[in-house]
């Protein structure tokens, strides 16, 4: 100890130097923040600027609500929004209905001894989704579900296929942490399987359901390659509308739609966050 102190004393200059350039853990986040500012914050600000301005004939940007009025007075755009919300909700529900039992089975150690099965289920994610969608189109065609004839069905099948891994993963991570003893207790105390599910398993897995829904709902609304390819261009989602506006140099309208999208994202985040909080308080569990 004493020798240690002596060493410290003798290296006083070094210590001062170290204090000045001391490495703090928070410095690790600098690259992320630089990235965040450059590619998230600044683009969002640009979207906001374009969403609430217009270009005058002289070429100046002036503040205006034109895009807002244009959006809310256009039945076409509102229609697209409603259709996208519909597709988003249906896709979320379908993904949950299909993914939930799978995730439960995968989390059961008796069925799935190691992580391999999970990998098999999420493997499609590793292939480029444009390629995958092209292949889905051909498979659906072979099965007789032609996108041109059944645009909604074909699109939904493609969306469910694409977003299922995103549902299974968060559900799986929640499921492996299920409190087994509580489930057993419920069974012991006379719950039938349905009651066990309703009163023990389902409430415990709500956080997984919420984050799975979050992972599926918004990306579905903004996806446009899948709907374009599988519905043969007959189904326009919100993402298509935005892309179309930008392609035709309607930057203000496009930005406003992107802003609406952003607002929707914040809204869903707000709602789901409340869910998370409720769960944490009521069940006394950290997630």
């Amino acid at each position: 100890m004493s020798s240690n102190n002596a060493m410290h004393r003798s290296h006083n200059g070094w210590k001062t130097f170290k204090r000045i350039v001391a490495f703090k853990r928070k410095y690790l986040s600098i690259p992320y923040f630089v990235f965040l500012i450059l590619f998230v914050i600044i683009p969002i600000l640009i979207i906001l600027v374009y969403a609430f301005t217009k270009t005058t004939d002289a070429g100046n940007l002036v503040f205006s609500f034109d895009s807002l009025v244009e959006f809310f007075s256009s039945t076409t755009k509102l229609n697209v929004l409603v259709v996208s919300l519909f597709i988003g909700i249906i896709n979320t529900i379908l993904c949950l209905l299909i993914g939930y039992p799978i995730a439960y089975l995968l989390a059961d150690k008796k069925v799935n001894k190691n992580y391999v099965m999970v990998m098999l289920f999420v493997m499609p994610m590793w292939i480029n989704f444009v390629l995958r969608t092209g292949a889905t189109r051909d498979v659906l065609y072979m099965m007789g579900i032609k996108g041109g004839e059944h645009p909604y069905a074909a699109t939904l099948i493609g969306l469910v296929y694409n977003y299922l891994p995103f549902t299974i993963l968060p559900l799986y991570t929640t499921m492996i942490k299920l409190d087994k003893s509580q489930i057993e207790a419920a069974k012991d105390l006379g719950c039938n399987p349905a009651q066990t599910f309703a009163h023990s398993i389902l409430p415990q897995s709500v956080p997984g359901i919420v984050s799975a829904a979050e992972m599926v709902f918004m990306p579905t609304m903004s996806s446009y390659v899948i709907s374009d390819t599988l519905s043969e261009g007959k189904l326009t989602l919100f993402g298509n509308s935005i892309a179309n506006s930008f392609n035709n140099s309607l930057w203000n309208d496009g930005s406003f739609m992107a802003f609406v999208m952003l607002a929707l994202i914040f809204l869903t985040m707000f709602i789901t966050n409340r869910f998370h909080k409720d769960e944490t308080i009521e069940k006394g569990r950290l997630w």
Partner: protein
Amino acid sequence: MKNKKYRTFAALSFSFLAATALSGCSSSADDTLVLKLLNCEDYIGESEFTFEYENENGDVVSMTYDDVLSGFEEYESEKLGKKVKLIYDTYDTNETMLSSLQTGKTAYDLIAASDYTIQKMMSMGMLQPINRDRVENYNTYCSSYLLDVMENITAPIDGVEQKMSDYSVGYMWGTLGVLFNPAKVTKETGVDEDTVKFDMQDWESLWDPKYKNQMSVKDSMRDTYSVGIMKEFGPEIRAAMEESGCFDMKDGMYALDPDKYDDAIGAYNAKLTEIFNRCDEESVKKVREVLLSLKENVFGFEVDSGKDDMVKGLVGMNLAWSGDAVYSMDRGENEAGQTIYYSVPKTGGNIWFDSWCIPKTSDEEHKSAAEDFLNFISDPQVAAANMDTIGYTSFIAGETVHALVRLWYDPRAYAMYNYHDASGDRGCTWEDSDFVYREYDEEGNPLGEDADYSEEDDILYQTGFDLAEDNVDEFDFEEGICDMRGSDYSKAVVDGVEMTWAEYIDAYNAKAEAVNALIEESDADLDPIEELEEWDIRDLTYMFSGNVDAGDENSDDPAENAFLFYTDEIETIADEEGLEVQVGRQFYAQYPDHYLIPKLAVMRDYGANNIYVLKMWSDVKSNNLPIVGVVIFGIILAAAAFAIIAGIATKRYYHSYRVARRKQVSAEHANKK
């Protein structure tokens, strides 16, 4: 032009990397001029070609270039002594290109774009006039018809209407028509093939319920709008045709009346152009209704999948640009065994073209190099190389292109030059307008003049089948049955007997009959030889007049008039009333017959009306939620609302229950005490 929405990001980022990397090294190089080009994807010659030019001493230099771009760099340094480095970027659609030009800081020296985009760029003041005197080849070899079309398009620059031909140099052109696979449509709908071929001569058929879900149209506003125009204003166009008196309206094709060809045709085309370019609010509203009903009847809107879907036989009909049509027909035939046809319906349609322009950002030195480039690609030899790769039709119509078209499509060329040895080690190559016989060694290298080559070997004939030797078993009839030595485009020489090409068909058929009899006798395992049908004549005076020697321009005989081509791809189909229509394939797609030319109109930039068309298009593309959807949506929302309310109610109930119970318990407690 090709539409490749989904590949944009990859393409853009790669080209961006390439551009930065290349400009990085070349800026350090001494006197090399860096010329930046922007073109559509897959839109330039990428295969080896031979190029001949005269140097200062008047000697003809023959070069072999790897592709058009590197060819220009070599040519520029050899012929003009200038070092030029080309940076070649591509884009996917005109709209995204223009959009990125407006926002981006990248400046290009040469941009290839579609007619309406150039018009738009002109009126935006982005372009500078091209010094046409420096683009000599273009002035010499460009088809006068296309030059005329281009001169008629104007755009205001600083308040003065300027001709598009002064601001751009034409590159490729074509039509928009219907690509269809009768066998596939018949399989799906049960409509017989001849009826399909007949119906495809009419834009109305796209709305015909019997072809429901058969056709994919372009997910492209302008192209689909033009089809809407042809439907909505179809009756008006027909009336104008009748009024002009230039067309035989009782003919299934509304064919041109040759006597009146020159008189009223210009006036008719002007009227058609006016109708075709309607985009005021009222017209757009009408077309909107028409396109909404089209959406119900078509299979879908395709971005770039249409060509391949046709090849694979996934869809039976597709709205296609002529160059894509050629691609689909070639590949369908060679790879998938699909016989695909192309037609521009009888009331006509859209003629489009892509041309090169020089933006204002280019300085004097770069502009002059850009003009050198335009001169180079306007050389017929380069134009032929471009056409060979991309399948579209060049503006240029010199001898080389003429020879290429003959080689590709004229059955006379097939009769004369289609010969291969049974072992497959002989073939024919073409140089300029003439064909040279060459022998190849086992590795496939040409033996050339040093080896066993003599002028006598330079034979132009379909491999002769010697009837006298009776060697049926050893022979591959793919090679032909007539000795055609001595033939040329003006006369056929069949087994040493000179005759006209019309007579050749009879001679060939007689010989085929004899050979078929022999095959039958010998019971060899060979298919009988198909007899030839009579050839039709295609008049391409509009394209080649002025820069190719016709021989006798007024003659009706292709043997004397080089502007006339024989073709064997035309099929004539009659309906019950005896009206006859003709359907064509690749040749028709690349070079429409002259009767179609006056029925074609350019669709100009919509200008200020663009916003109406854009709105119309997003209306057409969007959809209302179907009734089932509304019901499901309602149920879900109701269920969610119920769940929330029920949740809150239960919580409240339990809460109040707990409170009451607690009070009760504490009361009991107090009582006990």
